[in-house]
């Protein structure tokens, strides 16, 4: 049966109090409680905000806790807010049949985070796509180049300040 909609828990303290036994929360706390910056439980989806320099280690601890399937990764541009970019990783657990979202906030000038391709080889194309369309670099990616746009394209089309009309 699909779960009934559970109440929203906003903020790190509320999630830690409301979901102390959640396997993902436990795994992150066991790894490094300071790396968890914020958390939110909304629409039955758990979002954990991770410090931007620790995403690879956090993902590794979740992978060890049974969140074995990297499903999706993308970015959101909150221009002109700061930090400008949000990266959203969706990771599924085949044993628990549950999905979590890891969220990383990245500053706008020369944005870069660690690649998770060493954990899941399948993140390769997703990170290339974010690099191509948002201009966020992934350190340690084996082949970071444009994937959807032509190689000589200027700019990153999914950024909010990318012009959508007029001549280039």
């Amino acid at each position: 049966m699909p779960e009934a909609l559970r109440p929203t828990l906003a903020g790190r303290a509320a999630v830690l109090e409301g979901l102390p036994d959640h396997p993902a929360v436990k795994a992150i706390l066991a790894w490094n409680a300071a790396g968890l910056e914020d958390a939110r439980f909304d629409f039955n989806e758990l979002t954990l905000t991770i410090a931007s320099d620790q995403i690879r280690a956090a993902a590794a601890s979740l992978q060890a806790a049974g969140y074995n399937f990297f499903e999706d990764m993308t970015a959101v541009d909150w221009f002109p807010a700061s930090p400008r970019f949000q990266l959203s990783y969706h990771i599924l657990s085949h044993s628990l049949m549950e999905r979590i979202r890891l969220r990383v906030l990245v500053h706008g000038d020369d944005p870069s985070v660690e690649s998770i391709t060493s954990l899941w080889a399948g993140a390769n194309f997703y990170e290339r796509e974010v690099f191509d369309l948002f201009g966020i670099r992934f350190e340690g990616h084996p082949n970071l180049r444009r994937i959807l746009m032509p190689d000589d394209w200027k700019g990153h089309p999914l950024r909010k300040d990318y012009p959508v009309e007029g001549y280039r």
Partner: protein
Amino acid sequence: MAEPAGMPTLEAAQGAKDQHMVVNMGPQHPATHGVLRLVLEIDGEIIVRIYPEIGYLHTGIEKTCEAKFYQQVVPLTDRINYLDPLSNNLCYALAVEKLLGLEIPSKAQWMRVLLAELSRLNSHLIWLGTHAMDIGALTVFLYTFREREEILRLFEAVAGQRMMTSYIRIGGLSMEPPLDFLDRVQAFIHTFPEKIDEYSNLLTGNPIFRNRLKGVGYLSAADAIALGVTGPPLRASGVDVDLRRDMPYSGYENFNFVVPVSTDCDCWARYEVRLVEMRESVKIIQQALDGMPEGAVKADAPKIVLPDREKMKTQMEALIHHFKIITEGFEVPAGEVYQGIEAGHGQTGYYVVSDGTAKPYRVHMRYPSFATLQALEVMGKGRMLADLVAVIGSIDIVLGEIDR
């Protein structure tokens, strides 16, 4: 176009005797199922490396979504995976309904399941026809397109369009299905299992088809999970995951069906898994027809769901709501949701971010072919060039959903 560092150029290998040859396959090659370009490094007939080059069909749909009202995104979703349009509509509608907290009437949910399964049959029929054609068995293509034509007629009856249906809308369905629609579906699935036997008779015992697929394109379960492979290729590698059963949506928990799994991990396993899936889809459609509830096909949310034509012409409120939805859209509470479904090719997911306005702040689509394409190198490496054609056919990619 300048080739990036790390990728061999077509010129680099020319003139040297001991070097590997680099050949270009696609983007117009008929066996690449669309505009997929593969740069292949080969040693004689043996594949050493595969570099997929994609983006030839990139139309910036994710960017376009940001300039549309929520309801205007529905027609865009059809165009992403044009072989499985109703699953795309369904996934997007479910994501936005989650943000809105809308209750969908049970008749609409059951109709959605029925249509999503018809759409899966449509997708699998095209896969089977083109896959067999790539291997050299042309007849099956003619057979599967005969049945696909009937499914497209059913889509046309219900939505007015054969391929770009946009029938599943936010809050339900666009309109009541025509009166004889369920009878026509019943007539179709009454004969369809015999048609599957027909395809199976042509292929399963065919020694050429068997030899071209058995043991070819090996993908271990660990590799499949690491590379993000979903859907029939994942289940053919022995991983028993199907979101319809494991994370049910749109009322799938009310249906009984078997999820086929094979541990052979090769192209033949993928063929067998999909054939069984087609039979199971027929069972789901039969259950949907038998238990189809009565009632409305749209949620009771006048500010979100367009009113019926008749009401719009006779009631003032309905006319106002219609005008407001068309000209201003409807506001969706701020938040972010991810909705995953099991589509014909694998796990489709829509990630919708709302900032509280009538237009989505960000829509991202996770489409299965994009991830599955990464597994091509693992499956094709060390095999003959001709085997690559069988592997591409067996993972069933659609370039529309890879490039978006």
